[in-house]
Every structure is written in structure tokens, then in C-alpha cells.
């Protein structure tokens, strides 16, 4: 357990660094001194950060391996796109900021509802079985999204399943996904979402409920004996993560002109999990750093051309193998003495 003071310092530093980065990047965008590729990546980076932070809540804080987190992102993205298109076509709401806000909100709420529905059966299981069921839900969501058609005509939304013959403008076109999306997401909105998710997650972790969630993770039976309602607290973490993932999805979806349902596949869930594990399980600032670095990295490796993903794979394996080398671990710990205490707790769990 970290002391209250150390925790406060880490949090303040995290927020301060993020705000500083945001200011620098905004200035750079205004000066046009930022590369086009990086500029295009800013909003996706924000959504991947939120994804990583929210998955860390499930995997790190609540201790359940989830392999279907991209499913919630998919739900959020497509509900966000539908809401945005509906507001624009049906109600003539031109103000992009308000539309973006409402879309992200709806994306979060709808993903949260699915989080509850999926959480009820999923959280009855343990360990690898839980992981495989989340994987299954992720695949089901991807598969079902492939068959959904939505169109807007006047103020009414029309739904079709496996049948694209709908009146009005199509917002969602089955396997073709969302086409001609008005990209209203902005970097500022993305930044606010990142800060919002940080506030939510860090406050949850450091609250009474957060301690209950971690107690349930560390020793289920002991926690139950202390009168902690395991299902309630696991559910709390799972649904919060689903809501945040939905919001991240809505932001992501509204930053892309076209979006295929197959985008949010098992591979994306795994990618987010890689962010979480490389950033440190249970380490929220670590998730932010690794999500940012690993989103930029494949682009930076572009000079390797075809060898790009190969290099990424080798890096991933090397980081994992060398990072867990006992010799290097001891060396690392000697170099940074302050880490000693924190790490032992984590290792005892493993």
C-alpha cells in the first residue's frame, strides 16, 4: 500500500504532465509545427488511453482478465455515430461540440447497459473461463454489429437486422459499417475525456469501494468473510470500465470518416491488453504512457516498411522476456530503491 502522501504526489504529477502535454501540443498545432501523422493520431491516442485506463480497472484493480474490451468500444462507437447522425439529420443540431458531448454520453450509457447485461453472467465465472467468455462476448458483438442496419428518416430511427432496405439516410450499413461519418471529434474533447476517465478511475480506486474491489482481488474468501459483497464490487469495476470504453469508442468513431464493425475484433482487445500489461498491471499512469508510446511506435517504425510489424512483435517479446529476467529485475531494483516496497506486494499476489 502506498502512503497517502506518495499517492497524492503521483496523482498530481500525472495530471500536471498531462495538462502540460496538452498545452504544448495545442501550441504546436497552432504553430503548425507538428507532423501530419502525429496530428492525425492525437484523437485515437486519447481513445486508446481511455481504453487502457478502463481495462486496467478490470484487469489490474479488479483482477479479472477481460479479452473482449473492444466489444464495448464497438458498442460505444456505433451508438455514438447513430446519435450524432440522428441529432444532425433529425433535429438539425449543427453545434458540433454539443453533438459530440451527447454522442459520447450516449455511447457511454449504452455500453454501460451492455456492461451490466454481460457482467451478470460473466462475473459468476473465474480465471481463464471468465477470460474466454469475455472473448466470446466480444466476438458476438462484432458479429452482430456486422448485421445491423440503421437509417434516419426525419426524426425517426429505423432499425434493420440482416436487412438493409430502410427508408432515409443509412447511418449504419451492416458489414460496410458506418460510412460518411461527420468527424466532429476534437483533440480538446479527447483530452477532456482522458482527464475525466482518470478522475473517475483514480477516485474509484482510492475510495472505500476501490479498497473493497482490491480486497476481493487479493483474497476472495477473506474479503467475503469481512462482509464485502464480491459480485457488487466486481460489477462496479466492470461496468465503470464498460462505460469508459463506450465513451472512448464514441470519440474514436466520430474521428473516423468510415468505420467497419470488424475493426473492433479480438486483436484490438488484445492490443489494449498489451498496453495495460506493458504499462504495469494496476498502474494507471503506466497505462497512459504505454498506450501513447505503443500507438505512436508502429508509425515511427514505418521506415522499416514491411518489417514494421515484425519489429513490433520482436520488441514486444523482448520487453516481456527481459523485463521478467530475474537478474535484470534485481539490478533495476537496486538502481531505483524506492520501488522496492511497492513491488513486493504485487509479486506476492502473482
Amino acid at each position: 500500500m502506498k502512503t497517502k502522501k506518495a499517492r497524492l504526489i503521483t496523482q498530481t504529477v500525472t495530471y500536471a504532465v498531462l495538462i502540460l502535454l496538452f498545452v504544448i501540443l495545442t501550441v504546436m498545432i497552432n504553430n503548425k509545427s507538428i507532423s501530419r501523422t502525429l496530428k492525425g493520431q492525437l484523437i485515437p491516442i486519447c481513445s486508446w488511453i481511455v481504453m487502457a485506463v478502463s481495462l486496467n480497472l478490470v484487469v489490474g484493480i479488479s483482477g479479472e482478465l477481460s479479452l473482449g474490451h473492444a466489444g464495448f468500444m464497438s458498442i460505444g462507437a456505433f451508438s455514438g455515430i447513430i446519435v450524432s447522425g440522428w441529432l444532425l439529420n433529425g433535429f438539425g443540431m449543427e453545434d458540433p461540440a454539443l453533438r459530440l458531448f451527447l454522442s459520447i454520453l450516449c455511447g457511454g450509457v449504452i455500453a454501460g447497459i451492455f456492461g451490466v447485461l454481460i457482467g451478470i453472467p460473466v462475473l459468476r465465472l473465474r480465471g481463464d473461463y471468465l477470460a474466454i467468455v469475455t472473448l466470446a462476448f466480444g466476438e458476438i458483438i462484432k458479429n452482430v454489429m456486422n448485421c445491423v442496419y440503421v437509417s434516419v428518416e426525419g426524426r425517426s430511427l429505423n432499425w434493420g437486422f440482416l436487412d438493409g432496405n430502410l427508408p432515409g439516410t443509412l447511418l449504419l450499413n451492416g458489414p460496410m459499417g458506418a460510412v460518411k461519418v461527420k468527424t466532429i471529434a476534437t483533440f480538446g474533447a479527447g483530452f477532456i475525456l482522458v482527464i475525466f476517465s482518470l478522475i473517475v478511475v483514480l477516485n474509484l480506486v482510492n475510495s472505500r469501494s476501490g479498497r473493497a474491489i482490491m480486497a476481493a482481488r487479493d483474497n476472495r474468501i477473506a474479503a467475503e468473510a469481512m462482509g464485502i459483497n464480491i459480485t457488487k464490487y466486481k460489477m462496479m469495476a466492470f461496468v465503470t470500465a464498460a462505460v469508459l470504453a463506450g465513451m472512448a469508442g464514441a470519440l474514436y468513431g466520430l474521428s473516423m470518416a468510415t468505420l467497419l464493425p470488424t475493426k473492433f475484433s479480438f486483436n484490438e482487445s488484445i492490443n489494449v491488453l498489451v498496453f495495460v500489461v506493458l504499462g504495469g498491471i494496476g498502474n494507471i499512469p503506466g497505462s497512459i504512457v504505454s498506450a501513447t508510446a505503443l500507438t505512436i511506435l508502429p508509425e515511427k517504425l514505418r521506415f522499416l516498411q514491411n518489417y514494421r510489424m515484425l519489429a513490433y512483435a520482436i520488441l514486444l517479446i523482448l520487453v516481456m522476456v527481459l523485463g521478467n529476467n530475474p537478474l535484470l529485475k534485481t539490478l533495476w531494483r537496486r538502481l531505483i530503491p524506492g520501488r522496492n516496497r511497492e513491488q513486493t506486494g504485487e509479486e506476492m499476489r502473482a
Partner: protein
Amino acid sequence: MIFLSNLVNGISLGSIYAIIALGYTMVYGIAKMLNFAHGDVIMVGAYIIFCGAQYWGLPAPVAVLLAMLVCTVLGMTIEKLAYKPLRQATGLAVLITAIGMSYLLQNTALLIWGANPKVFPSPFSTDALHLFGGELVIKPETLITILANVVIMIALSLFISRTKMGKAMRCVSEDRGAAELMGINVNRTISVTFAIGSALAAIAGLLLCSSYPMLQPTTGSMPGIKAFTAAVFGGIGSIPGAMLGGVLLGIIEILGKAYISTELGDAIVFAVLIVVLLVRPTGLLGKPVREKV
């Protein structure tokens, strides 16, 4: 009659899943890890057979043996380089390494063989079997797949229950520490497990691509995920469970696609998995885990 033909196709697809699932379940039982790279070993095996038959002019059985050899070496190398240094690490670290390995294999294949799908020539040249006055047509691939599955099942069961190595495997899967104390070479046992799993992956690659003749670097990943699902379905760590889970999953997938909806085939498979796991949380043939305080 259509139903019967679908059923046979389902069993055949399920047999492929079962053979792949064996690799997952054996490695899980013994090394307690999910080897996500297993699906990609299948793809490598299929490519080797393809190259052997198309470019190097090898007769089909030799090409298959070569692929089994390559996959065995590949599986053991992966284990040595990537998984062995992580024996003491957390399960998640191993999982991420396995994912990295899967990317590595896919991208290496992409560099060597390119992204364009290759049409896999069927190595089985005999005519299709016509039953019931030509109403039920069974392709030779289908029949051989089912036969191969049965043979592998029997051979593997005998190996696990009768040989010294099989006994060592059962020991390591039950209690690694105690097995080590009894003088069992745990590292070698794990190596052999990977070798067997990978050799089976080469066979699975052959059967998969003879029935679905499109070969590309991502060929192995979806069957890999489904086979992993099948292993969990039957109870992960249990060999008969992998068999049962694989065959049932194949039948459900084909019948679901035929009678409910083609587009939703995968969703149906995964939905059935969820329902089964809710009723039996450790799979069909998995041992229930008792909790001790």
C-alpha cells in the same frame, strides 16, 4: 439427407477444431499457459505443405512429414526462446509473450509468402463417396479428417496413459513441484508437450486447408480462437474434453450456419459456449475446482 450431409461436414470441421484444441489443452494442462501462437503454427505447417507440394515437387506424404518436422522444431524453439525464460513470471506476462509470438509468426509469413491468398491444392485425389444413390456426397477430405481425428485421439490417449513420458506429463500437470522432486525433468516434459502439440498443428493445417483451400498469413488465427474455445468448452486441460468440445463446436457451427443464419454462425457458436459455461463453469468434462480456505 441435407441434414445428414451437414452433420458430416460439421463433424469434419469439428475434428479439425479438436486436433487444434488438443495442442491448446495439452500445453495448458502442463505449462498452465494459453499458447496463442498455436493457431499460427498451423498456418506455418500449411504453408510448408503448400511449398513442398507446389514448388519443391515433393510427394504429398513427404511434404506432410516435412511440415510436421518443421512445426515440431518451431514449437520447441518458441518454447525455449520465449516461454521458458518466463516460467516464474505471471500468467499475463506469458500471455502477452505468446501474443507477440503470434504477431511474429504472422508477419514473418507475410514477408516470406506475401499477403495474397494461395489456393491450397487438395492432396487427396480420390473421388467423392456417393451414398444413398448419390444423395449424400462425402468428399474424401471430410472422411480423412474424421479418420485422422479418431486415430490421433486413440494414439494420444495410449501415449498419455501407457508410456513413461505420458506418465511424466500427467505428473507435471498435477503438481509441477512434486514432479520435480520425484526426479522428473520438467523442462523436457514441457518441451515434448510443445513438440507433440506442434506436430498435431501441422496435421491440422493440412486438414484445414484441404477443406477450406484459402491459405494466407492469418489463416490460423480464427480456427485457433475457435479451437481454444472448443478446449474451454470441453474443459481445458482435459484431452477427451478437447475432443468432445471440438466436435460439438464444429457441428454447432455448421448446423447454425445452415439452419439459423449464415452471417451469425460465429455468434451462435460463442453464445452456446457462454450458455454451457454458465451451466457448467469448468466446461463439459472439466473437473470442478474445490475452494480451500
